[in-house]
């Protein structure tokens, strides 16, 4: 069905199997008896005699007490495993990563100052704790293979933790409805083995990976950071203005002031998007990337935007 990629996930599956077993038993038991009664006591003629039974106290007490005991067992088992799913093990080192959710992308900030978008890079076999906050509406951070999920809320930090068993790639979904491109607010967890992780932490590159040119890096950032969701590169009008022929374009702000798009304007708009809203577009839609993108990354994005030309 779905693999479990952490040790706790395997234990969650045990709870799941236990409950599924119980569900199957009761489902089959109830409906087998139902169908049996339907067939066995089906009406044979208008003068059928029926048993004048109005109830049975012993039976009713038994079938009240047994479910009580069973649900208490399920509850207890669920809480025990959930505690380990929820709370990182004490007295063990924890690697903490900051997560910001925004319409419609994820940003990750690592202890060494590195940042990534939509791709969470973590070492294998390490306790990872994510400290999460939203910069706009409520999102929810979900990694099915790790069986973890927690809402990402504005103005309030939430957390989750995991410890991935193997190197590999896993899906990240947003599971709290957050508007138009909710279903495209997807990410990946890349779990790296020790060598690869050491290299990535130092250089920001995978083993054997070439450093990107500013243009390539700008294009990658433009996709990974969710810019594409609102700013088309083909002239279509989405939530925000298109980037096609954007550089050097002249237009007016909502305030009526005229402007021409240059390097400074793009850099400012990435950091403080609500300062200068282009006429005809809604305010308070774009999150601020101040502190989430380095100056060098912003400069790469500008390099890329300059190349988006219709001819």
């Amino acid at each position, binding site marked *: 069905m779905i693999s479990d990629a952490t040790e706790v996930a395997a234990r969650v599956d045990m*709870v799941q199997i236990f409950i599924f077993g119980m569900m199957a038993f009761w489902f089959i038991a*109830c409906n087998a008896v*139902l169908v049996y009664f339907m067939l066995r006591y089906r009406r044979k003629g208008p003068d*059928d005699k029926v048993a004048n039974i*109005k109830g049975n106290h012993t039976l009713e007490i038994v079938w009240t007490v047994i479910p009580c005991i069973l*649900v208490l067992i399920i509850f207890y088992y669920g809480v025990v495993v959930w505690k380990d799913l929820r709370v990182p093990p004490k007295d063990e080192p924890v690697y903490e990563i900051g997560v910001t959710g925004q319409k419609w992308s994820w940003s990750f900030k690592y202890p060494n100052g590195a940042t990534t978008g939509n791709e969470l890079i973590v070492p294998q076999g390490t306790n990872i704790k994510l400290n999460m906050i939203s910069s706009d509406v409520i999102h929810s951070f979900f990694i099915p293979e790790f069986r973890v999920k927690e809402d990402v809320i504005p103005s309030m930090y939430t957390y989750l933790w995991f410890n991935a068993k193997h190197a590999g790639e896993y*899906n990240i979904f947003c*599971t*709290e409805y957050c508007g138009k491109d909710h*279903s495209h607010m997807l990410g990946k967890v890349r779990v790296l083995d020790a060598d690869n992780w050491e290299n990535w932490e130092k250089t920001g590159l995978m083993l054997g990976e070439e450093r990107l040119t500013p243009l390539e890096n700008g294009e990658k950032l433009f996709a990974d950071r969710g810019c594409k969701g609102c700013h088309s590169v083909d002239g279509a009008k989405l939530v925000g203005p298109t980037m096609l022929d954007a550089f050097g374009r002249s237009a007016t702000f909502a305030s009526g002031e005229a402007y021409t798009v240059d390097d400074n304007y793009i850099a400012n708009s990435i950091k403080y998007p609500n300062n200068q809203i282009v006429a005809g577009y809604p305010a308070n839609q774009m999150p601020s990337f101040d502190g989430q993108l380095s100056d060098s990354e912003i400069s790469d994005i500008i390099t890329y935007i300059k190349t988006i030309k219709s001819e």
Partner: protein
Amino acid sequence: MAHEKTEYRPYLEPKGLYNWFWTVDHKRIGLMYLYSILIFFLLAGLCALGVRAELFYPGEQIVDHHGYNVLFTLHGAMMVFLFIVPGIPATLGNFLLPLMIGAKDVAFPRLNILSFWVYLLGAIVVLGSLVGPPGSSWLDTGWTFYTPYSIDSSTGVIPVTLGAFILGFASILTGMNFIVTIHRMRAPGMTWHRMPLFVWSLYSASLIQVLATPVIAITLLLLIMERVLGIGIFDAGMGGDPVLFENMFWFYSHPVVYIMILPAMGVVAEILPVFARKPIFGYRAIAYSSLAIALVSFFVWGHHLFVSGMSNWSRWIFSLLTFAVAIPTAIKVFNWIGTLYKGSVSFESPMLYACGFIFLFTIAGLTGLPLATLATDVHLHDTYFVVAHFHYTMQGGTVVALVGGLHFWWPKMYGRMFNEKMAQVGFWTLFIGFNATFIPQFIMGYQGMPRRYADYLGEFHDMHFLSSVGAMVNGLAYFIIFGNLIWAVFKGKRAAANPYGSLSLEWQTPSPPPLTNFDEIPTVTDWTYGYGDQQKA
């Protein structure tokens, strides 16, 4: 003093729109509610088919992302507020409650018609959100209106929440009316423990209606004020708390699912003994378990917030409380099945629906267990598993019971019989289509498919495709079912006053009943389910 025998004149006369719209007759009001909710059931159902059509394949099929979000929002909002909350109480409940307890009308007939007008007004206001361009003004927040998205969204949040606010008054009026009616208007001899179980279930549902609805009213009012005046109580940017909205919203919206399901359970408890010709098993347990469910329902809202940043201890307390709902629910199921034991069971269409209800409802109830369990809910929360679970309770439970109840009481309401063969075809189409739609959703939900996704990863395609095919069959079933029922009203053969041989009071009067229900208020000497005692005589 000899009672003057009046000439029999069915409540369906006099005809004419005026005589319906200004009526205070509970039977007419029940029917007007029925027609209205069925119109919204059709509209909301078409939205659901739109959703499923879009999801046949990944990528954009018939609508863009915003269009998809509008479709599932309208589907949810109309189904919940306009169809299923008034679903059984305001239709079958209004029609049957006075008949079942031997009264001539409800306690406040004028408040009853007021409730219907308020419902219409609320419905019009909700539909008012559709005036304006679909791209920018059709609501896209989901029926849950979670803040802060619903504060930021440029779409018609105000008309829909205001409409829901108004609809709340209709719901409160109905609930209040039913409680007073049950307390004050039972016929002589109709003691609490002789009442039909449908009346007990309406009583429990009415308690929730009057106690939970005001909380959603104030919540939606605060949300409207948030948008109009920017009061900031739910706005994180102004120091407010968006999760407070979720708490207040679910304080109503969890109990409300029991407004939907309790009367459905009541319908089933009425149908089973009639077609098994046997007393209901464990009458008091069924009656009191309805009250128990109503009570517990107020303390379990937190299970909608297991991953919403609540403190860890409140999570496990809410988990424990949620399991408490399972007990009275299980008791009911066992009692229904026990009713068939050593009976004389016949399978006319109402009985098929009742047994189908038990089958589907066991799935609905049992799939609630992994959602109440903390360890497993974290994974399943907000996936298709949840979607399938609550559709099994709402459609497999409430709608199946409503349709079964309509078949059962249709001869009472119109004095005409539907085509039994077609009714059975309708049932099996619904049964197959419904399961085909939602069983795949359980599977993909467990695999991690999140809900409210306009687009999905290729790995989920098979299950989505199956589900969409099922949905089309599911939709077709309703056209067969309601086509048959509507045909019966005009062309069906005349029904006997009591075609199923029921002992309940509503069948001891002509079909359709006269305006005043009973020529003379009946005196009740025995409980409603004396099928075993009757055969000795």
